[in-house]
């Protein structure tokens, strides 16, 4: 999977939970889930559960705590997929 494909998949996953439409439209690797997209903590859990389903991986507590931006999410997904 290329980085672009991964971002497209992530974008589809976070879409139902975002508050800031403008930040979502301009989403890049640097976008922060909480500060930029204004996703609340409960919905951040939904994002992680949806990531698990989409990529068929398991996210542990340590990874979850790091998964606060698009970039961090991509790193964790890539790590788990290659493990």
């Amino acid at each position, binding site marked *: 999977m290329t980085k672009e494909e991964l971002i497209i998949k992530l974008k589809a996953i976070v879409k139902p939970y975002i508050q800031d439409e403008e930040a979502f439209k301009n989403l890049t690797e640097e976008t922060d889930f909480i500060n930029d997209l204004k996703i*609340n903590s*409960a919905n951040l*859990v939904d994002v992680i*559960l949806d990531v698990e389903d989409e990529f068929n991986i398991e996210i542990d507590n340590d990874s979850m705590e790091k998964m606060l931006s698009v970039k961090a999410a991509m790193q964790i997904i890539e790590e788990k997929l290659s493990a």
Partner: protein
Amino acid sequence: MDKKNIIQYLPYSKPFLFVDELLEVSENGVSGTYTFSESEFFYKGHFKENPITPGVILTETMAQIGLVCLGIYLLKEDILSEKKPQIALTSNQIDFFLPVYPNEKVRVVSEKEYFRFNKLKCAVKMYNTKDELVCRGTISGMMIAK
């Protein structure tokens, strides 16, 4: 942590405590009851001279029994070490089928869908004393012991 203990750890008091008794509690779910006394504060205004339990109060009752009591049970080890449960309702979707009048006793039955990363999501149902379904839906909240 037994059923009585759980109620003692609830962060509510009258007139906003809607749990009388827990019937069962396990890792997978909880059931409990509450009787709406005719002197509840909201009957005076809901509705004028026609007291019916508000849907938001039924939702609150489902959340207190179905989510908060279960959450306290699931967090028992943290809570017993002198930490207090911190809770926040994050979403609910409830369908209502029957009215609940003053002096009615209701039973709430909750099944855990998941408890991960401090988010507890449950499928919750409420029944009246005739075992008729009053309302049902899903409720989620964040639960942390701090």
